[in-house]
């Protein structure tokens, strides 16, 4: 929360001044990420205290620890991207979000894979998980009850936090926040799997624990692979997608339409890369009658595009005799692929 200066001091992403809606969303997102970390600290401690010999509990605990990565990445990146572009970094620091995303995603993948192998080996070696008693207030109860209690207690809050973050991720066009929200939303399944594993041990079904651990580690691994893919392809300058990577971002089509329909152009096509929150746009326009447009025309077109969406700020317009297919591949003129 300390990273947010007084509200009169407008928040910038690089040299982009955020609109009021995004400023509010960013402040909320930062607050929710701090809440998430507080909650995770409590959860991870509680789960550690009752960890015992259950592989499923161990997997759930490691997932809790890994869940720190996305909020930390988000909070660190949210600070760094505010730096304005400099001589050494002419494109600004927006990519820090992408770097944070890759780091978090690789960590998830590695830990998910490790846990998966460990759980599978436990199942193959048929090591029966041993859970004994624990002394509480003068009586000795089965530790398994405590494990199940802790997991049930910690199941619901991440789902609520995840839903709140999902909305903010869309407003901010923030993929780290989206990945974090997505993981949180699925967190209750980890808790239920761990409870089922421990309950299974109680019934003498020693393999239930490893099965639950396999389910949990598969979900960690899946999150990791999906996020690594998304983060790496974003750093590879994949075309700008929506915040959830489901479809191409509609802004590209909107910009091209606008540029095409100017009275001094006959065709236009842009290539857009997603720098993290903001887009870098290179638009190629073909002027009518092959005449060179005036500086005023170009300036006006650029200003209109920047005004269209806060994410467009770094934009160049290049007048060309015909659209260079080597720079803007794919069907031209209204073609959607």
């Amino acid at each position, binding site marked *: 929360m300390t990273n947010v200066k007084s509200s009169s001091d407008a928040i910038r992403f690089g040299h982009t001044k955020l609109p009021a809606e995004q400023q509010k969303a960013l402040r909320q997102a930062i607050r929710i990420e701090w809440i998430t970390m507080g909650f995770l600290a409590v959860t991870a401690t509680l789960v550690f205290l009752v960890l015992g*010999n259950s592989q499923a509990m161990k997997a759930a605990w490691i997932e809790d620890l890994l869940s720190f990565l996305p909020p930390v990445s988000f909070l660190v990146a949210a600070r760094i991207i505010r730096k304005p572009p400099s001589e050494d970094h002419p494109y600004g620091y927006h990519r820090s979000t992408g770097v944070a995303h890759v780091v978090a995603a690789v960590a998830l993948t590695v830990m998910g894979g490790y846990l998966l192998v460990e759980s599978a080996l436990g199942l193959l070696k048929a090591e*029966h998980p*041993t859970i*004994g008693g624990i002394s509480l207030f003068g009586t000795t109860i089965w530790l*398994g009850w405590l494990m199940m209690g802790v997991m049930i207690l910690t199941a619901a809050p991440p789902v609520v936090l995840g839903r709140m973050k999902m909305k903010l991720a869309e407003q901010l066009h923030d993929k780290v926040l989206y990945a974090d929200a997505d993981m949180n939303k699925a967190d209750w399944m980890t808790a239920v799997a761990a409870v089922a594993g421990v*309950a299974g*041990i109680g*019934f003498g079904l020693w393999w239930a624990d490893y099965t639950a651990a396999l*389910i949990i580690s598969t979900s960690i691994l899946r999150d990791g692979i999906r996020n690594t893919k998304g983060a790496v392809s974003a750093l590879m300058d994949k075309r700008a997608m929506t915040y959830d990577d489901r479809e191409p971002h509609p802004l590209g089509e909107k910009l091209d339409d606008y540029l095409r329909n100017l009275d001094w152009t006959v065709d236009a096509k842009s290539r857009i890369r997603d720098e993290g929150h903001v887009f870098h746009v290179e638009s190629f326009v073909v002027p009518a009658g092959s005449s060179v447009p005036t500086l005023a025309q170009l300036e006006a077109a650029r200003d209109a595009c920047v005004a269209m969406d806060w994410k467009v700020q770094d934009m160049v317009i290049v007048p060309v005799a015909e659209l260079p297919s080597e720079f803007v591949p794919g069907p031209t003129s209204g073609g959607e692929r």
Partner: protein
Amino acid sequence: MSRGSILVLLLATLLGLSGCGAYPADPEGTLDRVRGGTLRVGASLNGDWVAVPTSGGDTSDRNVRDSDVQGKDAELVRGFAEQLGADVEWVAGTEQVLAEELKHGGLDLVIGGLDDKTPWTTHAGLTRPYAESKDDRGKLRKHVMLVPLGENAFLLELDRYLMAAKESS
């Protein structure tokens, strides 16, 4: 069906099973077998905790008579067996031999002044620490016994007995 609903279903089935039998249960039924039967205990010599006076008799026999085994751990085991209405069958040996035997189901319990830093955690489960002592280097040792892996009903029964014994001492 989504992964979520499968999990919920699995959990419901497990909880539905809770009508039958003791909870937690032993996969190999150790507690049921020992109750009113025989408790097979491996004893590894260790100072005050487990002592077997040399009798000069037939030392090739690994089984020792009940009255031969002495020490704090042995007394606790006798009390536990009495509570279960079981006879104790003692087997003397090194930790290595006894831990292997325990792992393969030849023993129900191993004692020997062991502490919670025992390296035998891949072979056996540990009870809760029921006593503390200081070793020669002044390091605190928390004493435990070894039980078969995953025999949780038996372990819980023993833990309860040990905790009660610790309270009353």
